[in-house]
């Protein structure tokens, strides 16, 4: 049961904690998150990691579905350019994300809800910091409003 499922979307409640879904590619970013763990680098506990083989596995629809589900932030992270285990997956993904990112902003969905990043397998510290940064950014925005599905 989600921490903030009890409240209506769009309302800021005391003690509210943002919820973030992070789609991480198996070979670099997920490994980076593991390295943060091995190095015991602390970051806020609000993020739920979903492991996928490659950042190219993530379609815009999955990102939109996460927002609809009511998460306050989404992160999609893959290997740095050149590092992709599947050679070019992250390049292919990058194009889709560029279009989606622009489109979401265009529609007026707050900047800072959906994030894209490259995190390599060696960047444990960067991963921890990224999560901190995104958590703060999302926290500042408050609970997600746009696209969250209210039951009719």
């Amino acid at each position, binding site marked *: 049961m989600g921490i903030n499922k009890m409240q209506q979307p769009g309302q800021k409640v005391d003690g509210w904690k943002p919820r973030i879904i992070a789609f991480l590619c198996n070979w670099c970013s997920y490994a980076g998150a593991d390295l943060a763990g091995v*190095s*015991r*680098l*602390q970051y806020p506990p609000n993020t739920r990691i979903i492991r996928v083989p490659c950042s190219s596995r993530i379609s815009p629809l999955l990102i939109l579905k996460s927002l609809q589900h009511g998460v306050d932030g989404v992160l999609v992270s893959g290997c740095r350019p050149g590092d992709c285990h599947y050679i070019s997956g992250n390049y292919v993904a990058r194009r889709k994300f560029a279009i989606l990112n622009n489109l979401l902003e265009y529609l007026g969905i707050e900047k800072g809800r959906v994030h894209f990043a490259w995190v390599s397998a060696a960047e444990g510290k960067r991963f921890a910091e990224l999560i901190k940064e995104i958590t703060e950014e999302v926290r500042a925005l408050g609970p997600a409003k746009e696209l969250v599905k209210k039951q009719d």
Partner: protein
Amino acid sequence: MLNTDFEPKILSFLCNWCSYAGADVAGISRFQYAPNVMSIRTMCSGRVDPVFVITAFLAGLDGVLVLGCHPGDCHYLTGNYYAEKKMKMTKRLLDIAGIHPERLRLDWVSASEGKRFVEIVTSFINKVKSIGLLKADGEDKSLRQRLQAVKATLQTEKVRWLVGNEIDLLEKGNVFGEKLSPDKFESLLNSTVYDEYIKNWIAILLEEQAMSVGEIAQATGLDPKIISSYLVDLEQSGAVLVHALEHRTPKYTRK
């Protein structure tokens, strides 16, 4: 120059079976000694945790006296031996922290030695008088920080483990069945205690405010390169991180 215008506040820990009884004998015998000594009874001198000593200093005491049974007389057989190791290490740490180690004294008083009790107390008071007041509850922030660093160091498991196992390691042998030479043990203990103390000190300094390597070096009087090396440890354990960059100089802070 001797300053006699003040009376130091002294805390003594007395073991139940010898020293406390010795103090009682002093009383029965009406031997007189200065009134500025407070006593705490413990079952054994081995019960005196070095952390108590530092807590006492932080509370504003100027000297701590730990008294136990003479070697061989311990009611618990070896408690006083352990006390000896612990206090030795504590004194070493005080020295590293720039606090006169003779503010702490461990000595032996048997149940019959009322006179010796008074002599020790008196000489200790005089010693502390000659060193001066500590006043760690006063204005000196650096002193408090250093004492806190000492306290934190005394709380780490590795330091306690080493001190607690010193006798076994030296006499019975280590896990590989080798007896350690006192020198080797000493040098390891010294460096462990030193490393932990400096790290704790830096961490406490950074608790207050973000500082650069240069500023920490200035505050501690240590070489920047050494500070840099300890910062690597602290960063790796996640205790410290880069707070901001001032032009090209990173400033560090606690989480």
